[in-house]
């Protein structure tokens, strides 16, 4: 125990040494800060321009991230939060903890973006990923009628899981319960998070797994493996737009704004595609990395506005739970 | 003098009354039918059981409120008299210093105790490497270094053969005589009592009877003893 205290003391001592530079603390999800995520490069690139120290703090996932900020409340240590998505924006806004920062950029989103508080930094389509040599259903109804096996994530514990819930609701509205009932026998299992689901799919437990249209890009670019494909559904694929925002309680408002400007700049945006494996919110000058042009692009995109998403969320969850608990 | 003054021991349905005096320096056998409370009497004197009523005095000082370890006595139980993970020497040393390291002088005392019980050179062995008789000797060596004024024996040699048991009792008798110790020993066997105890306490009918001269008691036994002796 004594050694632990000493170790803890040493840790706080090392962070104190750097304290003469101004500090910007950004809360984000854990995979962003991991050594394979955008975090290390983002830190290096921003610190090269800002004369400051950028502290990236990882919190499990987007939903846990928002919970952390709510838990800390007005005197949160965070200056900026990066990693919420449209399903969380309404709840985030309602806390009153976030401040406007009016960042503007030439967003390359499939939808129009107007929000003075939440700045998009990347986006993607949810999609079912499958082995390219198999055939994919064209929509949810075809999927439900087939004996294709899928693995999905639980909307209560996973961002893609919640995305799928919204996807079916956006595409089918009041018909959503029937769609879920039809899908019930296709669902091999429901996992806590994306990693379990994707891992099981790679082991062959299912024909398809809920992920992103950009997932095949990872296999193609990082592993030179073109065997994975993502299915475009003709109802449209639901969008995920990930956003960053400044906290009202920040003691570094200028630096926070500077970071948000940086987020929509080329320096940040060119890091995103091959580290976060999402589409950049603003297409970098050099364009998308080679391989992204091979990705499936759905013809239609679906997205609830933050307010709509908040309004339908609980009912959609109840329908999902009900249909899959039979 | 050990005095049990109007003592009442209760344990569930079991009761035992004792109102007896034992002269210092005598060896007393405690004899009686199985289940009459011989061991209970000893355990009470040692402090492992509470008195319901009465008090115990040693040399006119009340000892019945003392912690068992603070009473002026050493006790050997039916079994478990040695710590199996400690060597003979370490076990004996506990009699001198239960809580600390030995001085040079005390180490010598341990060695001479080992010599006295005829186990020279076996001090480094653990109990499992010793025979039953040797284990008893180690326990006696510890009692020896404890230098307590009273020694309580709750049939510690019951598991030994007759010859070995006699040998141990003789050793006890010698040690007790050398150190002027008061001895109380539970026994089943009139031979044991005759062998080393001048006096005998009969425990029967819920009463610990006052000590009687051993020879006389066995020559002219009261009815309850006669029944026991068969």
């Amino acid at each position: 125990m004594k050694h632990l205290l000493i170790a803890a003391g040493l840790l706080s001592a090392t962070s104190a040494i750097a304290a003469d530079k101004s500090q910007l603390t950004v809360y984000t999800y854990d995979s962003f800060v991991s050594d394979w995520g955008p975090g290390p490069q983002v830190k290096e690139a921003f610190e090269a321009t800002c004369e400051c120290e950028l502290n990236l703090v990882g919190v499990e996932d987007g939903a846990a991230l928002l919970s952390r900020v709510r838990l800390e409340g007005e005197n949160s240590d965070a200056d900026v939060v990066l990693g919420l998505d449209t399903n969380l924006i309404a709840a985030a806004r309602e806390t009153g903890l976030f401040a406007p920062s009016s960042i503007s950029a030439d967003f390359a989103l499939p939808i129009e973006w107007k929000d003075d508080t939440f700045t998009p930094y990347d986006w993607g389509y949810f999609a079912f990923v499958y082995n390219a040599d198999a055939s994919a259903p064209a929509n949810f109804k075809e999927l439900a009628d087939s004996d294709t096996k899928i693995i999905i994530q639980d909307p209560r514990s996973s961002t893609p899981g919640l995305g799928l819930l919204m996807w079916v609701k956006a595409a089918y509205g009041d018909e959503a319960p029937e769609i879920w009932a039809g899908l019930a026998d296709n669902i091999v299992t429901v996992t806590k998070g994306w990693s379990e689901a994707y891992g099981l799919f790679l082991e062959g437990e299912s024909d398809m797994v809920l992920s992103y249209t950009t997932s095949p890009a990872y296999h193609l670019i990082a592993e030179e493996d073109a065997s994975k494909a993502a299915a475009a559904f003709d109802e449209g694929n639901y969008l995920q737009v990930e956003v960053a925002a400044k906290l009202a309680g920040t003691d570094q408002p200028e630096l926070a704004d500077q970071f948000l400007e940086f987020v929509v700049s080329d320096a940040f945006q060119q890091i995103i595609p091959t580290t976060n494996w999402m589409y950049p919110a603003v297409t970098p000058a050099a364009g998308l990395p080679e391989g992204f042009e091979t990705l499936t692009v759905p013809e239609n995109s679906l997205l609830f506005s933050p307010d709509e998403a908040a309004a339908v969320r609980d009912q959609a969850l109840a329908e999902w739970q009900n249909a899959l608990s039979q | 003098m050990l005095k049990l003054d109007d003592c009442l021991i209760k344990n569930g349905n079991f009761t035992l009354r004792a109102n007896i005096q034992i002269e210092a320096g005598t060896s007393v056998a405690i004899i009686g039918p199985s289940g009459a409370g011989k061991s209970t009497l000893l355990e009470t004197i040692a402090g492992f059981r509470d008195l319901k009523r009465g008090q115990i005095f040693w040399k006119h000082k009340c000892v019945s409120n003392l912690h068992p370890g603070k009473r002026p006595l050493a006790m050997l139980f039916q079994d478990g008299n040695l710590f199996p993970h400690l060597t003979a020497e370490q076990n004996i040393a506990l009699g001198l210093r239960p809580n600390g390291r030995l001085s040079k002088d005390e180490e010598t005392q341990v060695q001479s105790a080992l010599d006295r019980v005829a186990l020279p050179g076996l001090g480094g062995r653990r109990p499992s490497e010793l025979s039953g008789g040797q284990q008893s000797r180690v326990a006696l060596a510890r009692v020896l270094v404890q230098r307590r004024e009273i020694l309580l024996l709750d049939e510690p040699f019951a598991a030994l053969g007759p010859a070995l048991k006699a040998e141990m009792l003789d050793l006890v008798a010698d040690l007790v005589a050398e150190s002027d110790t008061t001895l109380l020993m539970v026994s089943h066997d009139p031979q044991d009592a005759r062998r080393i105890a001048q006096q005998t306490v009969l425990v029967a009918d819920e009463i610990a009877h006052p000590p009687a001269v051993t020879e006389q008691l066995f020559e002219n036994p009261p009815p309850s003893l006669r029944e026991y002796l068969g």
Partner: protein
Amino acid sequence: MAERAQPVSPWPGIGAAALVATLILGTLAAVALRAETSSGFSPADWAALKFTLTQSTLSALFSVLLAVPVARALARRRFRGRRALIALLGAPFILPVIVAILGLLQVFGRSGWISDLLGLFGLPPIRIYGLHGVVLAHLFFNLPLATRLVLQAWQEIPAERFRLAAQLGCNGAAMFRLIELPMLLRILPGVLAVVFAICLTSFAVALTLGGGPRATTIELAIYQAFTYDFDLGRAALLSALQLALTAVAAFAALKFSRGDGFGTGLDRAIRRWDGGTPTLDAFWILTAATFLLLPLASVVISGFAGLFEMPAMVFRAALTSIIVAAASTAILLLLALPMAAAVATGRYGIVELSGILGLAASPLVIGTGLFILIRPLANPTTLALPVTALVNAAMALPFALRILVPAARDVVTRHGRLAISLDMGKGTFFARVLLPRMRPQICFAAGLGAALSMGDLGVIALFADPQIATLPLQIYRLMGAYQMQAAAGGALLLLLLSMGAFWLLDRGGRWHAEA
């Protein structure tokens, strides 16, 4: 007064128990007090409660029922590799959940080894997802633990008993009735309660193997209350419910498992004369080994390639994990030993109870509560490692107590009177008699604690600092970054480290276990 004389003081143990209770209940209170509004229990929560109770009860029953014949077979047979097998059987228990799930499904899944084998004969794949899958997975995790606990009790039966029974001409069945059944009746309620409580807090395993939202456990409902609804009041309420269920189970277990130790026996390797039926014993050992080792084999096979692809930070994380495990083990022993001593002096069931609560405490609630409590005083992130070590110790405490308490009770019964009559101090008895006499159990508990801490994701994820990661966290990060192969390598490394720590510590105290 004299009757209350005890060779060892209960107070340090009571203090340790109070500390643990404060940690568990204090963090719960911190969460509850931080709550703004709460919606109370919903019908879905009641469904979760029902499912949780069903799966925990079934999992506990099956784990214990199967552990008895396996432990009996292992206690009776001496064969080459027995020690290694016993150590290996402990492995599933210490695997990180996600690794264990992948390993299990590689064997039992739709496209697992068994289904592939069935496919060769034109048979359909087995259906693993459902309540039976949940129970199977919990069996995989808990059968080894239950077996070890029962085996330990078996080996603590003094050899003299078996000799006596053999002398009386007892056959296997009579020997069982005479010696083994009383031992089992004494120990099984406790083992049942432990496994029940472990399964109570299952989340990812129950959900994945259960095949969907019908397999929602209370722990998932707590997670949902935290992150999905941000309803701290409901999270605290659900967590309190979980604690209450565990307390009930623990109380029942304590009530039924009262009884004395097995009396005096000298240290001697156990030899038995009942013979039994070697084929039946072989059957149980082989079945258990196959069931437990196949998924482990799949972890090893899929990890092997990844072992050479792991980036350097994985090894740094491994080092961090080793340090955390060492600290956690030290804290564990500092808490568990005085607590075991206190329980051994009797009438301190409340101490044991407070130890068992660690099983049912939701890591999410403890972590969040600690976060709320620490934040006004210090930056929680800088305390990530000490906090992780502390929480891991509290989580391993129930197992340590189950291992230590019977042994401590036995030592106090056997040697307490002698120590008192020698006027041995309570501290001396603790250091010179209790600790050395309990060495095998202490080493077993330490090994288990170190291995558990190594494999546990614990609360580090809540406090995470990008610079400091434990190995389980790094494995999750690798998976989150599509690096499944490197993650599999990390999992194998973790398995090796956990087993290594366990083997090293447990070996330090092996006694009786050898032929």
